[in-house]
């Protein structure tokens, strides 16, 4: 391990060290309020150590690839981690909870910078294992235990699938390093995209589909969200989703020729996921269950971005810049994360340590009884629904504009079997997505309508404390700020997207030589 690697891993090292320190100190010390201070400090320190000024090349053999994609995703990870720590900031937050949370954030930060199958897998496990602990720590009733167990077993199953898929990929590519895999897969493409790689594709998509809660790997999400606390639900709907999307991007972009098979898989998953998520959410009365289906639906939108990115990697041009697909995914992940955490923070604030808000009906009349949490929830709901001028709208804009902008290049053959129908396919995808957005508005509006148009049934306790209050306020401000000045984030994600697609194209050069 060279000093370079150490330097690149500063954020993760800081986070893991802090987390271990908190675990150990927790066994001896009682000062409970201080753990969150420590965690927040560690996150700030990690942010300082995050060298964003000069994204360096792949550290060959080290398994790290701190490219622009990694830098953007790491910033997102640290910001999301900070919001989650703030959300968990209570007087009785235990050291175990804070430590495990930091570990999960470190895992996310690690996974988005990995370009090696082993490191990718380890990073994903570093997110999953602390999550099991977190799920168990925050709620001890029967429902909580059911949720924890369900998540534990299914997550293990997904990990097994992922490993199995990775082993096939190793077989095809002859290496665990993504760059070498790209070369290996390109070499094996002589007689068409190999069947072994297809098996790898299916297994990897299934496993990561679990992480991002894509249909049909979503069944755990509603039960687990319902059976856990708001803080945990926020974590579950954000961390694995960011990790899953980035890993999907990395692995699929490192498989030249995968577009033929992956494109159709992605599109089918996207359509089914957003439709099922949105339609099922219409009937939910439990607010966490509703947001679980909403989070499923958003995975569907994100998969549209993945389809666009795959088309770009396959050689189709995009009028908005070839990186629009990747850019849309990153931008959407960020605005989705902020709005979702904001919503869960508001709900956490409204509850009390003894009893949390469960039903949508409990929010009745919130506009009168608790005006500020109601405003925050409304802002987050409208943003998730994608109504301008809130951040979510720009997320939808980049996703759907990207889908409409795909054009097969006529001059040099792309080699996609769907050349003739590529554009039509994306137009249909965009139309289905937009109609889904209209359906989704129905249940988001239901929450808003309940808060503002119904008579209060009683005043919610609102004993969540300062942590959730600060989190929800911060999230609302961020949603509005990105809504009015989307360029702040969008320009960066666009650069990242372009760089990522360029790198993927560079990795593919052997493939063209072979042809």
């Amino acid at each position, binding site marked *: 391990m060279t000093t370079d690697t150490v330097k690149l891993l500063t954020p993760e090292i800081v986070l893991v060290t802090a987390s271990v320190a908190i675990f150990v100190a927790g066994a001896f010390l009682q000062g409970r309020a201080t753990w969150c201070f420590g965690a927040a400090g560690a996150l700030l320190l990690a942010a300082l150590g995050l060298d964003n000024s000069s994204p360096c090349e792949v550290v060959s053999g080290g398994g790290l690839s701190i490219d622009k994609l990694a830098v953007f995703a790491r910033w997102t990870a640290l910001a999301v981690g900070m919001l989650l720590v703030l959300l968990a900031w209570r007087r009785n937050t235990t050291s175990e909870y804070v430590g495990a949370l930091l570990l999960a954030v470190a895992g996310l930060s690690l996974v988005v910078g990995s370009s090696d199958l082993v490191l990718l897998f380890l990073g994903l496990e570093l997110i999953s294992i602390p999550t099991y602990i977190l799920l168990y720590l925050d709620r001890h009733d029967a429902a909580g235990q059911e949720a924890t167990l369900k998540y534990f077993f299914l997550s293990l199953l997904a990990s097994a699938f992922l490993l199995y898929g990775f082993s096939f990929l190793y077989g095809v590519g002859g290496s665990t390093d993504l760059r070498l895999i790209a070369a290996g897969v390109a070499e094996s493409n002589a007689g068409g995209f190999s069947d072994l790689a297809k098996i790898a594709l299916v297994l990897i998509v299934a496993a990561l589909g679990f992480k991002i809660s894509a249909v049909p790997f979503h069944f755990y999400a509603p039960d687990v969200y319902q059976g856990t606390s708001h803080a945990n639900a926020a974590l579950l709907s954000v961390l694995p989703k960011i990790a899953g999307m980035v890993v999907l991007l990395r692995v699929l972009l490192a498989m030249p020729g995968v577009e033929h098979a992956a494109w159709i898989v992605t599109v089918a998953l996207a359509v089914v996921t957003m439709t099922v998520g949105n339609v099922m959410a219409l009937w939910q009365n439990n607010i966490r269950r509703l947001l679980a289906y909403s989070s499923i639906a958003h995975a569907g939108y994100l998969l549209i971005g993945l389809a666009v990115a795959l088309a770009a990697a396959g050689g189709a041009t995009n*009028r*908005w*810049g070839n990186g*629009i697909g990747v850019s849309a995914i990153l931008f959407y992940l960020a605005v989705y994360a902020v709005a979702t955490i904001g919503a869960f923070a508001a709900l956490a604030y409204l509850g009390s340590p003894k009893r949390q808000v469960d039903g949508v009906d409990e929010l009745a009349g919130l*506009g009168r009884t608790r005006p500020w949490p109601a405003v925050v929830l409304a802002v987050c709901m*409208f943003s998730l629904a994608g*109504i*301008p*001028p809130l951040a979510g*709208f720009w997320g939808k*804009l980049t996703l*759907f*504009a990207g889908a*409409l*902008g795909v*054009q097969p290049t*006529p001059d040099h053959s792309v080699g996609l079997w769907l050349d*003739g129908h590529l*554009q039509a396919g994306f*137009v249909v995808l*965009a*139309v289905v997505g*937009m*109609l889904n*957005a*209209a359906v989704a*508005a*129905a249940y988001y*509006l*239901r929450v*808003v*309508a309940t808060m*503002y*148009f*119904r008579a209060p049934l009683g005043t919610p306790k609102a004993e969540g404390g300062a942590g959730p209050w600060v989190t929800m306020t911060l999230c609302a401000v961020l949603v509005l700020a990105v809504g009015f*000045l*989307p*360029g702040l984030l*969008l*320009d960066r994600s*666009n650069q990242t997207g372009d760089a990522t697609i360029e790198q993927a194209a560079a990795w593919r050069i052997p493939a063209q030589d072979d042809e």
Partner: protein
Amino acid sequence: MDNVLLAAVLLPLLGAGCVWALAETGRKVVRISALATTLLTLALAVVLISQYPVGEAEFAASETNVSWFGGEDGPIDVRFSIALDGLSLWMFGLTALLMVTCVLISWEAITDRPAAFYGTLLLLETGMLGVFIARDIILFYVFFEFTLIPLFFLIGIWGSEQRRYAAVKFFLFTLAGSVLTFLGLLAIVLWNAYHSADGVMTFSIPELTASLRLHPIDPAVQLWIFLALFAGFAIKVPLFPFHTWLPLAHVQAPTAGSVVLAGVLLKIGTYGFVRFSLPMLPDATAACMPWVLWLAAAGIIYGALVALAQSDIKRLIAYSSVSHLGFCMLGIFSLNPLGMQGGVLQMVNHGLSTGGLFAVVGMIYERYHTRKIADLGGLAHRLPLLAFFMLVLTLSSIGLPGLNGFAGEFLLLLGMFQRAWTGVPGDWVIHLRIISVVSVLGVVLGAWYMLRLVRLVFFGELREPIRADGEPAPRDMSLREVAALAPLLVFVVWIGVQPRFFLDRMSPQLDGIATQAAKSLDQKPPELGEALTDANEVAAAGEPTRDH
């Protein structure tokens, strides 16, 4: 003149912030500051209108154009670009005028959380003003969608019994259409980026219009984009049979909500057709023209017949809106300079007369707490001033010569008849003639249901709901209420007497749009069943051909 327009759009936003900040100071301060904001905005609008260069299509001096995001060198360059032109000028003025009315008529009616109410109303004003002056397609859509949020709260919080259902239905109906409109607008931008001479991607509406005139979109693609835009705009208008959300929203909304809904928000639909569909998709417009005209005529007759059968005053006027907006669509889609001028003028007229009528209904409701026609009668004895306003607005609504409604309806019917008898619309000629004649029938029906309403409610024997002991008889209009309606009456008469003043400022731009659309119609008159076969052929052939 540099930033007057910008100030006029942002002022209500600022006012909304002030009103919310003043929430603790009580109703008086709140409503006075809301009134001051709307008056100041109106003053700025008057300044802008008075400076408008007559005979020009655009008001270049009012333009504000700064990069919003994406940057000029990137592929996406979204700009905050606003300016007035002939089409938007009067809609802009109408919005500023009606907002003053809205604040005044809510003066006593709104007792529940007035700061929130006026703040939301002012927020809505910024949204509506922005829709009409946006020069960037993305900015237009942002304002277009944003208007939904404040109106959703206005209906849902301050509406009548069924307000929750009405607010949600209104929001979802409009959103369902406008999501497709969004894709259609993006498709226009993309097509232009591929096919324009320099291949630069632009979101600017004037640039797109000019560029698409040189490189028209492939007709079959135009048709699909037209349908996508149609989904949003037709629901907003609302064109029969997409109108079902409208009566519900109107009846349940608070008076101010009904006034802006009828006065301004419905016009965003017709405005969208004139701004985007006609100039950017002329071939599809020509191909779909007879279909749209049939829907417009159906709306005229259907709205009128249903209005005749209503027992609730507000509901009656809501259905009359369906009928009147049918007239606007008829004028616009006659694709004839006269008809187009009439249609756009009728948009303003309808805003004045129906907006005013909803205000009168609100005043009646404040006095009697009923809107049932059967509960009321002979109110002219009790409320002579109110009866006067009602009568003038009614006469304006049914198109009495000398008042504004006549100028608009006459022009648009003239345009329609010209199109049906002297234009060359091919196979459809007999349809167009039937549509013209049928829509004239709508004028007669309009006079019938409106005059019936006035006769039943205001004339004959005095009939009022029974008052509790000691409750004083309702008083006639107060000075505040007169101040709310009098400006509308001024314009009702002014447009009626001197329509040239208004038409001169809009005609240069509208004539350009109408002539271009008429040209496509002449080149390729729609034939029965042709539009769809065309599209199918192209779809079967796969990729549409490119210029270069």
